[in-house]
């Protein structure tokens, strides 16, 4: 087989396989950037306290695991898991639950929305 044909076949196979997976989680367009949010999760060292599957060095057992966070009902036991509440929590957890172990962040509104979008993408 010629190399070009071989590559084309591989590409086709990959495309077919990619179509076989579960549907991607619904994204709230214009709300936050999931990829950017994942980078922010790394920069904020979320993984030193939280377990996040698919993220390197994110094996902390201080706070709850963040797997399936997009399907969680309540944030920190007190806030309904809506996008706005999550954004608020990520920026100032101390204002929501004073004295809890999670520190306030200095995220901008956009960064908090991106991080929320990443967390909501965890299904």
């Amino acid at each position, binding site marked *: 087989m010629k190399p070009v044909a071989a590559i084309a076949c591989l590409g086709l196979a990959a495309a077919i396989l990619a179509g076989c997976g579960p549907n991607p989680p619904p994204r709230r367009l214009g709300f936050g950037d999931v990829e950017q949010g994942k980078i922010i999760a790394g920069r904020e060292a979320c993984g030193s306290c939280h377990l996040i599957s698919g993220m390197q*060095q994110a094996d902390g057992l201080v706070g709850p695991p963040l797997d399936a966070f997009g399907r969680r009902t309540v944030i920190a036991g007190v806030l309904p898991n809506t996008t706005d509440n999550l954004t608020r929590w990520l920026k100032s957890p101390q204002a929501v639950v004073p004295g*809890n172990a999670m*520190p306030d962040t200095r995220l901008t509104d956009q960064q908090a929305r991106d991080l929320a979008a990443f967390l909501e993408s965890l299904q």
Partner: protein
Amino acid sequence: MRPVPTPLKWLLAGLVGFAGAGVLAGAAALYVIFSGAFDASASTPHRAIVAWATHTTMIRSVRARAADITAPRAFSAAEVQAGLGSYDQHCVACHGGPGIPRAPFVSAMTPTAPYLLDAARRWSPAELYYIVHRGVKMTAMPAWGEVLSDKETWNLVAFLEALPKMSAADYARLRQAQLAAASPARPDR
């Protein structure tokens, strides 16, 4: 000419292939070093393979080298208290604490400094001592053994061992006690 026996042929082919692979790997390494293709900036995260390789190397290095350090069996409350004083002075800016954020610039480090609330569950006391005392290359972690005495470093380990069971309120209370004990004559470093 006599034909070369088959096993010898395979051996020769293998050797040539091995040498060829070595030359290619060397050329690739030189390319990465000299071409400028590697992004050494801190504003982009490590590629997954680089993050894995560097972090795993660090973990294995610490585990191997801390093996012959003997840690104290237990730490006293006074040692935890003294360790908190050092932590508050030298460590909290980069590593944060219970309910305490890191300094804003720390999020901009690659790799970034972790929170240490469960460091004692990840590392043995001897390993924690080794990391604090010797620092970590290619991260922002200094070799505190150049700055702190062995006793002060063990006090830090005592504090890290106590940290998993310390609430934000506990930390604040111990910090106040430490500041009160240290004043009025708090020596500057």
